[in-house]
């Protein structure tokens, strides 16, 4: 009954039920769906009028652009701030960054984004606009002369040597990236801080000091390397948080990426799309965790080498 939107369809209900196998028990429907999935058919997204698979590939580049900018900011910023806060514990920097982190973590993303829009788009007359590109640039990007190598606007802009496109797409990216980053930086920063504090209490830090190393090296070379390990574990969750944030961020800025699509399909009860999206993010999540596990081996030799000479 989720597919029935038009009363006239009611007459065809029996046919439709037959066609889609809707009268079969739930688990059988599930397996049918699964079978379809493996054949690459995730169903039809009526919200955007294309198949779910197409929709995913269509909207992916936009979200990717967001993620490419936001992720390094979140990770590097979070790690740097966390280290500084731990190294100067209870100092001014510590309290400020922690207060800042708490603020960031308490901010409703959607509210923050709207406020940003209000200020930078409303008050500053369109300085940082919503959506991906302004109308003029959109036309340019979709025109014949513009080759879309990656569908990532700012890269395509560079590759086509159309700097106006690059500039425009970056301008549209500023607010969404900020919105997405603020909440997550807070998260990483707090984790890094507590991890660093623990690391700084360990014996090898005292040894490093006793060797005469300058404090900066003690922190950066010895303590931090160990402190980053738990943060790495969390990267998987960070990915999930970014996907979350993406839904809200994109819906606010009308930024047509995966999140935006997910939102629209959710509101209109487009079941196959939601399932498709959930499946997609699930797969991505598993892949991310795999990568994280591999990175783990690089960072922590205990994992890499296991036991040894005794």
């Amino acid at each position, binding site marked *: 009954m989720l597919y029935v939107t038009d009363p006239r369809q009611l007459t065809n209900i029996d046919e439709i039920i037959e066609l889609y196998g809707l009268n079969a028990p739930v688990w059988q429907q599930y397996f049918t769906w699964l079978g379809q999935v493996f054949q690459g058919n995730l169903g039809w997204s009526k919200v955007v009028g294309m198949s779910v698979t197409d929709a995913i590939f269509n909207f992916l580049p936009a979200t990717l652009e967001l993620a490419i900018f936001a992720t390094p900011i979140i990770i590097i910023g979070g790690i740097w701030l966390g280290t500084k806060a731990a190294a100067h514990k209870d100092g001014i920097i510590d309290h400020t960054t922690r207060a800042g982190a708490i603020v960031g973590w308490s901010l409703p993303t959607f509210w923050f984004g709207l406020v940003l829009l209000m200020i930078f788009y409303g008050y500053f007359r369109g300085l940082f606009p919503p959506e991906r590109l302004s109308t003029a640039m959109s036309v340019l990007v979709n025109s014949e002369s513009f080759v879309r190598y990656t569908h990532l606007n700012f890269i395509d802009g560079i590759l086509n040597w159309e700097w106006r496109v690059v500039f425009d797409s970056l301008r549209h990216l500023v607010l969404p990236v900020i919105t997405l980053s603020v909440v997550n930086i807070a998260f990483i920063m707090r984790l890094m801080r507590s991890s660093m504090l623990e690391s700084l209490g360990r*014996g090898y830090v005292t040894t490093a000091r006793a*060797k005469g*190393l300058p404090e900066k090296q003690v922190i950066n070379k010895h303590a931090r390397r160990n402190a980053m390990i738990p943060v790495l574990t969390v990267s998987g969750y960070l990915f999930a948080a970014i996907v979350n944030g993406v839904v809200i961020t994109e819906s606010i800025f009308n930024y047509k990426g995966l999140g935006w699509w997910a939102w629209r399909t959710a509101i209109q009860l487009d079941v196959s799309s939601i399932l498709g999206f959930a499946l997609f993010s699930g797969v991505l999540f598993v892949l991310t965790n795999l990568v994280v596990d591999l990175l783990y081996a690089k960072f*922590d030799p205990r994992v890499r080498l296991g*036991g*040894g000479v005794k």
Partner: protein
Amino acid sequence: MEKLVQIKGVSVNFYTYEGVVRALNNLTLDIYRGETLGLVGETGCGKTMTAFAILRLIMPPGKIESGSILFNPNGSESVDLLQLSENNIRAIRGSKISMVFQEPGNALNPVYTIGDQISEVILLHRKGEMISRAIADIDSIEGLPGNRWGMLSSYFRRIQRYLLKKIQSNPEARLPLIVQKIPLARRLFWRLNSEAEKTALHMLKEVDIPDAQRILGYYPHQLSGGMKQRAVIAMALACSPKFLIADEPTTALDVTIQAQILELLQRLKNEFNSSVLYITHDLGVAAAICDRVGVMYGGSIVELAEVNELFVTPLHPYTRALLAAVPRPGEEPMPIPGYIPDPTDPPPGCPFHPRCSLARDICRLERPELREVSPGHLISCHVDTGESIDSPSQN
């Protein structure tokens, strides 16, 4: 004998939520050149704090309140370690004064190889030496007839030599520092690292680690406890320190390994002609390897004497009680009555008086000074226990 280190009236306080902990209370101690001084006492009496105070490793919430620690490495002039600038004390840490810790597993950083960690301290304090060696190395190659890649490698070698010379003449030189930061260009300093590694290898062999070459590339978790401790010792002695502080180095190890480590320390001490401050709660070990022994209680020294004298004629009531408490076969164990003082609320006067069988009124009021009662034998007690050896029940 000359004095290497003179600790005078050092007090260290820790400001915690439970109150102010007086970790060290007017500590006075001298360490002579070339001797092994043992520091014994129960847990919490301030032994490790003494070590940290010497190296100025006391971190907040701890604070060194007063006192001075004079250090005289060359026999010329002394410096007060507590007054030195950060840079200067760092130059001393690891090179002139070194420390070996209790838990080797904790002391080594798990994400770096043994070789890396030893090279680190070598490059820190013996950099000039390593540079000269590296330059000499380059020079020797330049003399040889060239090969096919001659021109290219010669060019690289000249760059390396130039950079090394730069550092040699001016350790703060900007250019080499910048090069050091760039990931690929950093490789230009490979000779320096390899020289340091060679030295690290030499140190590992000195401490009798088998298969040293392979161990250089191992991570700490791949070694056993005894080997880890040897590596830590190698690291501590890499720059030939004049003063080695060993904080219960064998407590975490098997007894058989313990014997090996002790023997190793003795040998190295003689070889490098350094002084050793050996901190332990094991009286047997102290008796075996120390020249003099100091007994600590409640944050200060209560007795200090030559090793034989201390064990044969202990004068301070605490030392006597401690020796009596050592379990002997066939005898009842004799623990010391009472508990160690609450560090936030130490008893007035002498810290030991609540548990002391010889306590008098004055012990409650005034803290005794450390005074010499016979040549080389100092105690801190109001009671002249010369005659009272056999009457422990007097009050």
